[in-house]
């Protein structure tokens, strides 16, 4: 079935030819366009929301303030504590909302492509988080950061033989990959699912030769509607997970026994 739907390979869902600066590292394609449009929308939302100073917020101010406070309280303060959480909340909010905006294109009619379903952006964000928490760790704990990280307190000493290599690999090598792959794989899966159900609807309409297709068309269509709703949830959830993990990693780097 998939082979029939994607006769030229699944990559045609994700490969976008550049329409500016082709052949250069600045080749500008749909992914780049969506990333920049997300930046503009995110900026408009928060600059617009912060300009209004109504005592009782409404409209864009309400969205901006509620969104910022959500990230600050339920991610920053909850994970990193009162002081660090409030200090890091602006970065975490920028990260959360940018990932959300870039994810949500998946269900926007006419666009229907999450830029995070390309590995480049999740990888960039994961590497950025990786660099940030390592730099923060060395800044907060000095050279003992690596030692503190791979020899966590409270573990029986003989277990360090096992724990230390696991922690070393998990913290300094696996984390950026797991961050990137989690976001990327979820968005790819969602995009493929929506595409499959969309193409099933279209193919059944095209091949309509009697009662058989008419009876079956509602099934993929119902799934398409349901999956669209589900993918909105996934877009929010993946942004939340990426942000909360970033907060956890930075929080751990700030305090060894966190």
């Amino acid at each position, binding site marked *: 079935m998939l082979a029939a739907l994607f006769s030229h390979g699944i990559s045609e869902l994700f490969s976008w*030819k550049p329409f500016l600066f082709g052949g250069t*590292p600045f080749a500008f394609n749909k992914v780049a366009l969506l990333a920049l449009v997300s*930046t503009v929308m995110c900026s408009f939302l928060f*600059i617009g929301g912060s300009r209004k100073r109504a005592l009782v917020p409404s409209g864009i101010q309400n969205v901006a*303030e509620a969104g910022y406070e959500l990230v600050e309280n339920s991610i920053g303060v909850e994970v990193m504590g009162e002081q660090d959480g409030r200090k890091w909340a602006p970065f975490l*909010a920028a990260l959360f909302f940018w990932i959300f905006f870039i994810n949500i294109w998946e269900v926007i009619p006419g666009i229907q492509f999450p830029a995070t379903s390309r*590995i480049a952006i999740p990888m960039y964000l994961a590497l950025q988080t990786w660099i940030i928490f390592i730099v923060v760790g060395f800044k907060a704990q000095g050279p003992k950061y690596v030692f503190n990280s791979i020899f966590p307190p409270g573990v029986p000493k003989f277990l360090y033989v096992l724990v230390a290599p696991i922690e070393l690999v998990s913290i300094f090598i696996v984390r950026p990959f797991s961050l990137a792959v989690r976001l990327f794989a979820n968005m790819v899966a969602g995009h493929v699912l929506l595409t499959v159900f969309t193409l099933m609807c*279209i193919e059944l309409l095209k091949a309509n030769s009697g009662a058989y297709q008419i009876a079956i068309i509602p099934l993929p269509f119902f799934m398409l509607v349901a999956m669209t709703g589900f993918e909105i949830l996934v877009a929010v959830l993946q942004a939340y997970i990426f942000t909360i993990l970033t907060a956890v990693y930075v929080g751990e780097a700030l305090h060894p026994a966190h």
Partner: protein
Amino acid sequence: MKIRKLLATAGVAMALVIAVPSVASAAAKPSEFTDCMLKASELKTTTAQDNAANNCHKATSPILPALNEIVWGGIAFLIVAGVLLKFAFPALKKGLADRSAKIASDIAGAEAARAAAEAEAAEYQAKLAEARSDAGRIIEEARQSAEALRADLVARAEADAQGIRARASEEVQALTARALADLQGRVADLSIELAEKVVEHNLDHDTQIALIEGYINSVGTSGG
């Protein structure tokens, strides 16, 4: 209403699926594939053409990141982070802090106003209680003075009545005495007249009076 909304949503979704299937358009426009196949067909040998055509069917690895997308993704995120951290969030945080301060100040003001109102209400209550107590005292005093006045008036009336009764009694006694005196005089006169008629001679007046009074006294003594 719900059914109408559901139908409308389903209609819009269906229209979107059919009219703007941009996800499908990616599949419907195999431009890269076509380009690849065209390039393959331009090769000289059949083997090379076959190999190149086979390569065209192979999907590009989705795991390998595209440098241009990393560059643009990085630029886009750095811009949004810069803009938000520099311009949007400080103003937003200031707005939130100002609002918190204003709400805290309003709550403190409201608390103070409530405390003042409660104190004022307590003061009013105290004054009211005092006024009630004063009114009770005044009523009691008035009642007592009215009672005293009534007792005084009653006593005075009783005294007056007593005086009146005494005076009346005295007057009655005086009148009785006078009547008795008059009666004695009259009886004496009548007796004299009668005696004169009986004895047909006149006694001198003093003798007559003495005789009559002696008679009356004897009558009074025997009658009394």
